[in-house]
């Protein structure tokens, strides 16, 4: 005889519910300690002037937020974050879509090529950053040696405020390209051949078939790639911390996460850091909601 109970008009087996509770316990515990409590705590900390160096910790209301909205470096961090994602995404999107379309055609060594394009995604960012630090060396870096070879002026790359963020962006494109290629490729391979054949029967040339049939069918992936790209640029930290520690010349590579890290862990300003982290969270949250809505409205389904 199986014991049962009824809740909201549905019947459940007692033993099964107990088993489910046992199996879910580890997840619930980690979720509470690693997400729920920290999120509550970061909110309460953002209203304090907690300073790790002096040990001071008082409630100061919205002063941290007032500080951030007048802080030039914070403003720069927000502008830099959007500049970075605009540069990285536009280059990334065009290249990854183009390469994915080529990879989708009938070519030899297809799998090997895909493996190569994806390889930089897999390698630890620190290790590949070390290679690129050398590439960007103004004296003996290969990039400047190539520029010199073509008679062009040398650049300071990571060491000048005008080129530092661009250098980080170029690295990010190389590092992340394979990921978007794989996403687009999966999308292209999901388009049934019959769609293209139908387009050809209707008299479309290959250009028309691509722009009128294939590209619209890829729009859900494209919108996903764009929004995830923007959201991910609010998470970029490793390559900046390795290649331009401290936020680069004149804060030129100061992105939002770097700002939070510096306030909290370099300056010991836990309150300010928390407030900045919350603003970052709010921006990412709005973007995530936007992404969901945009992909619901503008996307072409079959």
């Amino acid at each position: 005889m199986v014991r049962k109970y009824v809740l909201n008009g549905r019947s459940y087996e007692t033993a099964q519910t107990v088993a489910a509770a046992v199996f879910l316990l580890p997840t619930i515990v980690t979720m509470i300690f690693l997400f729920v409590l920290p999120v509550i705590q970061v909110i309460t900390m953002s209203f304090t002037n907690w300073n790790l160096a002096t040990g001071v910790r008082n409630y100061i209301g919205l002063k941290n937020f007032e500080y951030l909205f007048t802080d030039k470096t914070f403003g720069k961090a927000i502008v830099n974050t959007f500049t970075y994602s605009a540069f990285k995404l536009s280059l990334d999107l065009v290249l990854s879509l183009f390469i994915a379309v080529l990879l989708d055609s009938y070519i030899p060594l297809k799998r090997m090529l895909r493996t190569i394009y994806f390889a930089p995604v897999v390698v630890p960012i620190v290790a590949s950053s070390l290679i690129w630090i050398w590439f960007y060396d103004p004296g003996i870096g290969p990039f400047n040696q190539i520029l010199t070879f073509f008679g062009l002026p040398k650049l300071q790359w990571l060491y000048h405020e005008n080129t530092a963020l661009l250098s980080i962006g170029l690295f990010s494109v190389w590092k992340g390209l394979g990921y978007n290629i794989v996403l687009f490729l999966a999308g292209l391979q999901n388009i049934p051949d019959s769609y293209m054949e139908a387009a050809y029967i209707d008299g479309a040339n290959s250009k028309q078939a691509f722009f009128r049939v294939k590209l619209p069918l890829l729009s859900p992936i494209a919108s996903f790639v764009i929004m995830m790209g923007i959201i991910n640029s609010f998470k970029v930290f490793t390559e900046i911390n390795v290649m331009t520690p401290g936020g680069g010349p004149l804060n030129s590579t100061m992105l939002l996460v770097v700002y939070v890290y510096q306030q909290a862990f370099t300056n010991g300003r836990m309150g300010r850091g928390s407030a900045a982290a919350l603003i970052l969270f709010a921006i990412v949250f709005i973007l995530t909601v936007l992404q969901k809505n945009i992909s619901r409205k503008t996307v072409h389904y079959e």
Partner: protein
Amino acid sequence: MKRKLKRYNIPAFIFLAAGSALMLFPFVWMVLSAFKTPADVYAYPPKWIPSSFKFDNFNEVFNKIPFWRYYANSIFTSVCQTFLQIFISVTAAYALAKLKFPGSGKVFAFIQSSMFIPAVVTMIPLFVVVSSLKLVDTYAGIILPQISGAFTTILIYSFFVSVPNELLDAAKIDGCGYYSMLSRIMLPNATTAISTAMLFAFLSHWRSYTWPLIVTNKTELRTLPIGLKYLVQETSSEYQLMMAASLMAIIPILIVYIFTEKQFVRSLTLTGLKA
């Protein structure tokens, strides 16, 4: 209708091959440069091929930094994190996919919502808790805050759902309980999913940077990425040493990737999320 013969698209291949050479260039540069002497590094015009293939740079890396200690730290923390994360994910995925209980939809949404919280938001409070528990510069401090796995839970869940209920019913009739059902029915039927999830978890822990950076001060506790980061300061532009160290850090991961490429790429596209 005229049927096209299947012929290789040669221009596409040439373009892709050239592009893949560019993508590989940094790795080729690293491998060659790991053997270069300081004179090779500063030579102009640039020297592509090192003047000799000696392992001096590697030995110098071992002299300068406790490289194998970093390696062992990385392996130990990543393995522990992967094991804990997969344990948590598998149990939750089983309950959500195959057990009937009130509020399962809400629990699922709760787990899913954690994926939208950027790590930087929880980083400061987690550091405060870890340091008040005196866990800074300990393995527990590195490992425990990084074991939650919404991504792996959902990945395993999506495979568990497709295990036929008839199998479970048959096992039930044979006297199998809910606990042994997981080990006897679910796990053997979802080995691909679980190995994919393990691979994914391991690689993301192996790459993990920000948290170990915050929570370690002592050299002995550094993981490989943190050790590599400090190598930049400790060697001051001795690029040949940086390349030798990077090469040793990258090789195992590249080998794993090449052998599990299909699985790895599939796991990424399946849920469409980035580590």
